[in-house]
C-alpha cells in the first residue's frame, strides 16, 4: 500500500531534473569552490611548501562552505510553491521522500565538489598522496554535510531570511565531519594510515542516514506550518 520507493526515487528524479533545468544555479557552489581557492594563494602565499601544509584543511573548509551555500535552497522553493505541503500529505513516508531530496542535493553539490577537488589539490600544491584520500573523505563527508544541513534548512524553511541563521545552526554540527575529513588527508600525506579517519566518516554517514531524515521530517511537519 505504501509506495515507499516512489517517494524516494520520485523526489530524487524530480530534484535532479530541476537542478538540470537550473544548471547555472546548481553550478554556483562549484564555482564558489574554485573562486575561493584562488583567493588562498593571493591571501596567504603562493609558496608551494606553505600551501601544501594548509591545503587539506583549506580544501575541507571551502567544501564545507560551498555545501552550506547550496543547502539553504533545499526546501525553500518547495515551501514557496506549495509542493512541500503536498509532500507532507502524500501517502509516502516523509523520511524517505526527504532522503530522496537530500540524495539529489548531494549528487548536484557534494559529488561535483569531490570530482573537481583534485584540480584544486594541484592548484594548492596538495602532495599527490593526499589526492585519493581527499576525494574519498569529501565523498563521504559532503554526504554527511548535506544530511546535517538539511535539518537546518528544514528548521528555517519558513523564515524569510533563513540563510545566515542556517549557518549558525549547522556549522557547530559540521565540526566532527571536518575534523575527520581533513585528518584523513593529512594522515595520508604524513604516510600514516588514513583509512581509520575515513572509517569514522563512514560511521558518521551511516548514523546521519539513519537519524537525519527523521529529524528533517519532524522539522518539516512541525515548523513549516507556521
Amino acid at each position: 500500500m505504501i509506495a515507499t520507493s516512489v517517494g524516494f526515487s520520485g523526489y530524487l528524479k524530480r530534484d535532479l531534473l530541476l537542478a538540470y533545468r537550473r544548471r547555472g544555479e546548481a553550478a554556483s557552489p562549484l564555482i564558489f569552490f574554485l573562486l575561493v581557492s584562488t583567493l588562498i594563494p593571493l591571501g596567504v602565499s603562493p609558496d608551494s611548501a606553505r600551501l601544501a601544509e594548509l591545503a587539506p584543511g583549506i580544501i575541507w573548509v571551502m567544501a564545507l562552505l560551498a555545501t552550506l551555500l547550496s543547502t539553504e535552497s533545499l526546501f525553500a522553493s518547495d515551501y514557496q510553491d506549495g509542493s512541500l505541503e503536498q509532500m507532507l500529505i502524500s501517502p509516502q513516508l516523509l523520511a524517505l521522500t526527504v532522503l530522496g531530496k537530500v540524495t539529489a542535493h548531494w549528487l548536484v553539490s557534494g559529488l561535483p565538489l569531490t570530482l573537481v577537488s583534485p584540480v584544486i589539490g594541484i592548484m594548492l600544491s596538495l602532495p599527490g598522496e593526499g589526492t585519493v584520500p581527499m576525494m574519498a573523505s569529501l565523498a563521504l563527508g559532503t554526504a554527511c554535510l548535506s544530511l546535517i544541513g538539511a535539518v537546518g534548512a528544514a528548521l528555517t524553511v519558513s523564515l524569510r531570511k533563513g540563510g545566515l541563521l542556517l549557518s549558525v545552526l549547522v556549522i557547530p554540527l559540521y565540526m566532527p565531519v571536518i575534523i575527520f575529513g581533513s585528518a584523513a588527508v593529512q594522515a595520508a600525506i604524513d604516510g600514516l594510515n588514513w583509512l581509520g579517519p575515513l572509517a569514522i566518516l563512514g560511521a558518521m554517514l551511516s548514523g546521519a542516514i539513519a537519524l537525519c531524515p527523521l529529524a528533517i521530517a519532524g522539522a518539516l511537519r512541525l515548523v513549516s506550518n507556521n
Partner: protein
Amino acid sequence: MSTAPLLTVEQLSYERDDCNVFKPVNLAVEAGDILQIEGANGAGKTTLMRLMTSALQPTAGSILYQGRSIAQCRYEYLADILYIGHQSGVKMALSAEENLRWMSPASTSANQIAEALVTVGLGGYADVPCYSLSAGQHRRVALARLTTSRAKIWFLDEPFTSIDKQGVAALQNQLQNHLAQGGAILLSTHQNLAIDGLRTYSVEPHADRGELR
C-alpha cells in the same frame, strides 16, 4: 457494510500560539456530498482544510475516515484524498506535462496525462515550461490533477481563483461528475456554485482571537 460516513469531523479545534483559531468544528460528509466551507477572510477556512488533510495536527477533536481515526489509517486515508491549496505546487522550471506527471499517481499513462491537459484546456501547452504560462494556466495545471487522481475525497481551497468563465463552467462539470461517481468534495470559494445538493458549512472565528490585538 459500514454505516459510518466517509468523513466525520468531531469537535475539531486548533490553537495557534495559545489562541483558538475557530469554534470547534463538527461536520460529516457522505459519498456524493459536496460541502462548501464558508467564512470571512481569516476565519480559518484554509486552516480547517489543512487540518482535514492532516498537514496540520489538531489541538483537540478527531477526524474519522469511514469511522476510523485518520491517525490509525493514515496512509490509506492519504491515498484517498486530493488537496489543491492556494499555492498550486507547480514547479516553474518544469513543463506542464512534467508537472502533472509528477503530481499524478505513478501508474498514470502518458495518454492519460495528455488527456488531462486537454481537459483543462492546456492541450497545446504540454511541453511549455511553466514559467512562461499565466497564473490562471498554473492553476489549470494543478486542476488537471483532478482528472488523473483516483482520490475519493477532494479538498479544494479556492479552486476558481484566476480561472476564466469557461474554466469555471468546466470545473463545475468536473465536480459534478466526481460526485456522480460517488466521490466527495469539500471546497472553499466565494463563488456561487450551481451544483445540486450543495451544502455549506460556515467557519466561525473563535472568541479568543478578538482579545489579541
